[in-house]
């Protein structure tokens, strides 16, 4: 396991997906937290959580992905946290572009692509690349 763990926040209303992602990433040496919607995620961030990366679902109750992005953009202290949009919808790339996201992962998410993306962005954030387990 690496010395400085890279934090990834997962925001998705589906328990299974949320838990699977957390599990898979934790297994690969990342520190993963999760929130069931945009509002919960925002609350965590306001409480001081500073993940290196946020995996953001678009369709969520209470506060959806787009609203979360708007709130995030208006809060300077968290505005710079890179966001990767995760969705099953066909127009995923367009949505990602529109929301100014760093990247996108289409559901069902390929394990390889997930790891590549997370690894790349964590490195970009200055965090050391996690060593393979």
């Amino acid at each position, binding site marked *: 396991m690496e010395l400085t763990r890279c934090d990834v926040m997962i925001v998705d209303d589906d328990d299974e997906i949320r838990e699977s992602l957390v599990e*898979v990433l934790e297994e690969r040496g990342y520190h993963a937290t999760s929130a069931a919607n945009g509002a919960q995620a925002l609350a965590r961030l306001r409480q001081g959580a500073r993940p290196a990366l946020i995996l953001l679902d678009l369709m969520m109750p209470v506060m959806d992905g787009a609203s979360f992005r708007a709130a995030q953009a208006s809060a300077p202290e968290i505005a710079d946290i890179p966001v990767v949009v995760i969705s099953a919808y066909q127009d995923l790339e367009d949505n990602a572009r529109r929301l100014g996201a760093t990247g996108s992962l289409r559901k069902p998410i390929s394990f390889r692509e997930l790891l590549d993306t997370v690894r790349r962005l964590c490195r970009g954030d200055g965090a050391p690349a996690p060593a393979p387990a």
Partner: protein
Amino acid sequence: MTATPPADTPLAHARILVVEDEAIIAADIEQTLRGLGYAVVGSCRSADEAVDRALAVRPDLVLMDIRLHGPGDAAAGSCRDGIDAARRIRERLDVPIVFLTALADEETLQRAQSSEPYGYVLKPFDDRDLQVATTMALCKHRAFALLDDRVRARTDELMRSEARSRQLAAVAELGLYALGRSHAEPLIARAVATIADLLAADRVEMLERVPGGRLVVRGAAGAADGATGQEVDAGPGSVPGHTVALGELVIVDDLAGDDRFTPAELARTRAGSAVGVPVLAPTGIAWGVVAVYWRDRHGARAGQASFVQAVANVVATALARLDGEAQRLAAERQAEEARVRAAHADDQIRLRDEFLSIASHELKTPLTSLLLQLQALVDRPGSHDDRTRARLARATRSGERLAGLVDTLLDVSRLTSGAVELRLEDLALDDLVGGVVERLRGDADRAGCVVHLEIDGAARGRWDRLRLEQVVTNLLVNAFKYGAGQPVTVAVATVGDRAEIRVTDLGIGIPADDVRRIFDRFERAVSSQHYGGLGLGLYVARHLVEAHGGMIVVDSAPSAGATFIVRIPLDLGAEEPSRPPNAQELH
């Protein structure tokens, strides 16, 4: 000085009746008149004889002695004297009368004047007196007659033009009325009423020709009132039938005496005369006919017929307009219905797409966690024995195939609704194809296929990356499926202004009969029991290629493998239509 009337005037040979009871005087007068060039057409001795004679010979002038001897006062009804006779004659004949008289009492003169004499010759008179009196009387009479003719002609003309202007006004009014109508019935009712009114006709019918050549009353006035809806004999023996058969104006002076018409028509209309006018649509086709009847004979005249024709024209024009309007309304209604249907169909398609989109989203959500878990397990090195790892890999592939099928279903739904939107970007086809081949390496290995990539130039263009990746994927998956255990070749080249991708397998090939249908939905050339899948891969590929303005063909023969060739324009341009022009008609 003996002045004779000019020989070239009618005066010269004027025919004169002489009424004088004294034979010697009469003979003298006759001689003088003949000398003046007149013709003496009779010489009477009594007043009664004078009246009879005058009526018999119709002279141009009567020279009448006032005092006549005879049975004057004897029988009732005889003339007292010449004045009486003159009055009787004047009552029946427009003939100038000149009295011959000796000195007369006041009462006699007044009586004489009341008979409007044209002159007097006082006895005793000479030739000249007689000549002056007769000439003046004849001239005066002729002048009066001329004047009379002129006045009468002028009066007739005034009356005619008055009638004409009333008719013109009526036609104009009817035209205005027609413009405001959206139904023919009130217009036709008004038209027949107008004709009956202005032409003092006793019976007016407007009849429509209906299928079968029958004539049905659409509007009636006068004696025909209430006949609307009735059918009328359409044979040539009726005035309407005759008019239709002739196709032009018919004027009947004497209906009873005209053997063109049947007694039945006479009995039906009880008319003496009639006019029939065809009602011609602007196209020249007879809509029907107007029949106008008068009880009297000779009631119909040409001037009246032209008025009826004018009314018929107004009605015909209005009918054509109403017909056109009805057609326009019908067309508008149809267009509206089509629009509603289309909107409904759009709604249906939108609902279906929404449903499929949501359904695929819902299907993918559990798939996401399932696959993540499986893939993570497979990927965990050293933690499983080989058998477990193989089983995990198989489970992963099943999950991935399930995910692929969900994607395909969504794609097909969009293709059938013609809603393929391309996201164009600058691409290098060699990179794109190479990427797909790389991604499918696992599938290739499992199928026992070695993939050869032959790149002839970069083949750059503006295309939709995901769509083209899907095309290549579908073709490769197809090649692995039907050409398992054999090498597969993928070639990329630029041919003219098109990019070309060839995917060649050495598999079972496709019989010529099946080549056409393999690009249809749920079609495959072989039994689905031996080869899995939905049979949608080539269908999707074809539509995505066509959405790019390209085409996909196959070159194959049974047992000789197959080469699928995709050709797409290099320069599709962002403004190009992004949906296949014939996506709908293909189904």
